[in-house]
């Protein structure tokens, strides 16, 4: 029984195979290719070859990929979307696609309609929902759109109207036109959720290519017994079936996987994770085994969304960062980098660019390449550069800490060799020989998650009942995504009171995780 995990990053595509005790039995780092798919194929092929296991014993295969993000950023392969917002006459003051970059609005066809209905914060209808109105619109969109996005005002309180529109769309436009309902995509905040739902609908073609490509790659290697999953940005998995209708949830899974992988390797549940790559260092916060979520709204390809993303601080320091001696004697480090060309350009590999990796080798912090090629660098310069590297890391760590106490730090990533053993504000540094492929390990150990958010009035629904209800709904989400019911546990409950609203109105958000077996 083995698990295969792949993580596609900007520079590297990593793959690992874990045994049933979640021990790493083989791992590989390959370059990410322009088409992404051939890179995934390479990585799978190599990691299997190295492991020499019988592929029939691989029972699970997980993929964390950037293809959806790339499609949005590059405006490629996106579908035409028909947007139905339920809530008229409310919300007409801000129409769909307001503040979107015009090039992507055009590609998505700028087709939208505001229809009557929607809910108040207490579940009352804003105006009566009118079925005929929706039918007419859907009929007029026949042949014009590739998918439908449905967004109802306060659909997190009641999604009946969104479901009704979905049924009508499937009846009128046929099963080949996919429908995304906003209540399954994002949380409260209409515009952000609408934007995420529109993007989700536009990504249906892309996600089909991803899932088909992954399936083919597995088949080619003879892996036919494995259940397949895609990674979400909250550190959990979704089944291929679920992923097909929720492609937007794959965005940002990379940093999450690296944090989760780091947690697994270090056996820590609460720590900072410092992932030093070739060009940047990403710092995330591990809270009870999961990444802390960002409180800022997330922009993808110039479009503001409100879905969950890990809180990551990126600084321009990596193993390939360029070190410069200026004429006035000062030294600078980065933010530019030789990136994946490090094995040709860094001095220690016979190149002519002084990088942070050269500094680490010069100071005897690690043994790679040919140290004799570094004789022209003075100890003074090396020490000075290391002081700057240390400062950048210490400052970044301090920004992400939530208390003044020293914190444990888990150090991972291909560029981890440039970090000193001691950092100010850090209680202990954890490292692991598999730290370089922490992201692929994170993909492999990911669990199945569920999340539910709703506004309750504690006057009508006592607090304990409200939380129980939200937990039940979150469990159902997890089961839908492929979790086994009795393995599910609650990882977080968040309560936010709504000011000015009567009856102790409180937004409750519950997150659960479970295992797929």
């Amino acid at each position, binding site marked *: 029984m083995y698990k295969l995990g792949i993580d596609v990053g900007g520079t590297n595509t990593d793959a690992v195979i874990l045994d049933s005790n979640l021990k790493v039995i083989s791992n590989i780092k390959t370059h990410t290719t322009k088409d992404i798919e051939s890179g995934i194929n390479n990585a799978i092929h190599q990691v299997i070859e190295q492991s020499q296991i019988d592929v029939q014993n691989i029972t699970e295969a997980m993929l964390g990929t950037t293809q959806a993000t790339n499609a949005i950023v590059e405006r490629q392969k996106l579908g035409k979307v028909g947007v139905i917002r339920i809530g008229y006459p*409310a919300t007409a003051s*801000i129409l769909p696609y307001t503040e979107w970059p015009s090039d992507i609005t055009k590609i998505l066809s700028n087709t939208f309609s505001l229809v009557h209905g929607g809910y108040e914060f207490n579940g009352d209808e804003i105006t009566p929902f009118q079925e005929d109105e929706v039918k007419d619109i859907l009929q007029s969109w026949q042949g014009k759109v590739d998918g439908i996005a449905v967004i109802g005002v306060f659909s997190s309180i009641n999604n009946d109207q969104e479901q009704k529109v979905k049924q009508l769309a499937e009846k009128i436009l046929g099963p080949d036109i996919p429908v995304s309902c906003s209540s399954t995509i994002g949380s409260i905040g209409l515009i952000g959720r609408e934007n995420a739902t529109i993007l989700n609908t536009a990504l249906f073609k892309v996600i089909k290519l991803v899932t088909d490509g992954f399936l083919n790659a597995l088949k080619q290697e003879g892996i036919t017994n494995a259940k397949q999953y895609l990674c979400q940005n909250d550190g959990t998995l979704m089944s291929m079936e679920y992923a097909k209708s929720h492609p937007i949830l794959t965005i940002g899974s990379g940093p999450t996987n690296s944090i989760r992988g780091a947690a697994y390797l270090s056996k820590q549940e609460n720590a900072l994770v410092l992932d030093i790559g070739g060009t940047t260092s990403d710092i995330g916060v591990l809270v009870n085994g999961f990444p802390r979520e960002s409180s800022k709204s997330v922009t993808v390809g110039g479009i503001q969304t409100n879905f969950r993303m890990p809180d990551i601080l990126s600084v321009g320091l990596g193993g390939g960062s360029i070190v410069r001696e200026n004429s006035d004697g000062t030294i600078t480090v980065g933010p530019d980098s030789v990136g994946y060309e490090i094995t040709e350009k860094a001095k220690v590999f016979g190149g002519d660019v002084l990088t942070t990796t050269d500094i680490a080798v010069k100071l005897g912090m690690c043994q790679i390449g040919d140290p004799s090629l570094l004789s022209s660098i003075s100890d003074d310069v090396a020490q000075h550069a290391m002081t700057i590297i240390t400062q950048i890391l210490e400052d970044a760590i301090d920004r*992400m800490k*939530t208390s003044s106490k020293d914190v444990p730090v888990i150090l991972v990533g291909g560029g981890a060799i440039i970090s000193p053993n001691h950092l100010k504000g850090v209680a202990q540094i954890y490292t692991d020989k598999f730290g370089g492929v922490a992201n692929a390990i994170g993909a492999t150990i990911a669990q199945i998650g569920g999340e539910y958010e709703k506004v309750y009035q504690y006057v009508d629904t006592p607090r304990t009942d409200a939380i129980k209800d939200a937990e039940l709904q979150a469990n159902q989400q997890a089961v839908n995504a492929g979790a086994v019911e009795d393995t599910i546990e609650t990882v977080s409950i968040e309560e936010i*009171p709504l000011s000015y*609203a009567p009856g102790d*109105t409180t*937004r409750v958000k519950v997150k659960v995780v479970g295992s797929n077996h």
Partner: protein
Amino acid sequence: MSRKLYAEDINQIATGAALLGAGGGGNPYIGKLMALSMIKKNGPVTLLSPEEAPDEELFVSASGIGAPAVSMEKFPNGSEFRRSFEMMESYYGKKIYGTFPIEAGGINSMMPIVAASDMNMPIVDADGMGRAFPELQMSTFVLAGHSVTPMVLTDERGNTSLINTIDPVWAEKIGRNVTVQMGATATSASDGLTGKELREAGVLGIMTKSQKIGTLIQHANEFDSVDQALLELLKITNGFRLFTGKITDIEHTTKGGFNFGETIIHGLNEDSESTGQISFQNENIIFKVNDKVLATAPDLITMVDVDTLQPVTNEEIKYGKRVHVLGLPANDKWRTPAGIKSVGPRYFKYDVDYVPIETRYKNFVEEKGE
């Protein structure tokens, strides 16, 4: 001199107004999108300087009332003010000449732009608070003896309610209840004043002040350092940097429809041995360092992000955020016995006397020096 407000001006005003919201006033995002959508459709709006408001003409304030968190999900149709202003006109038997903001805040600095753009009327550069406050009677207009009503509340469906009350506190009570029935948010036309009254009782130049602050914040990264930009921000607001730290805890409770709470901030840098604590009731009311009071309402207590100087409102605070706590002096109209009675710390049920921020700050610095 009158001037036109374009998209860029609106972005700047929204940012600066969020700072003057003193932690409340709503998230500027929705208000800004509404204003930008309107002027995209109708072209720029005209901002009159206060002296350009004709003495005898009628001006009515356009605002949003209710739960800011609800307006993130259900926001207006855009035509509400047309209806409520019509009703006001038929009540007064007089044409409305222009509109003005009731307060400076993320949402209510934008609502007059929505109204003005839709009805093609000017906005006067004056408001009734110079900051944000939670209740209708907390305005310099009320301090000057004007009534809040007649007030017309409207919802997106077309429901309108004309409210006339015996005093401004009743306007707050009845208005709040009507708002709840309308879905916890409504739009409001209120505080009808002549140009002369508005000029005499209002806080003048608020939109321009908001814009000046917003422009500086948007260009904070063009200074030699963020600290330089912060110094400039303090200079143009006559403000003080009271504390710098990291938010480590937030406690919310709802009482009587308000968002009450405490924000705990652990000091950083020169404040690293200290703990700051903000008590808020929608807006920030009291700021203490190591249990010593350093600022109270009506002076403004406001947080900005240490890296960007972007204002931080109480709805979006999360632990881990690094902030400067700033103290800005309130408009002089609030620093009178009547003003302090209306919006001082005792009104918000804190057993603390109002002492102007500049005095508290000076004492604090002297004590620290000893």
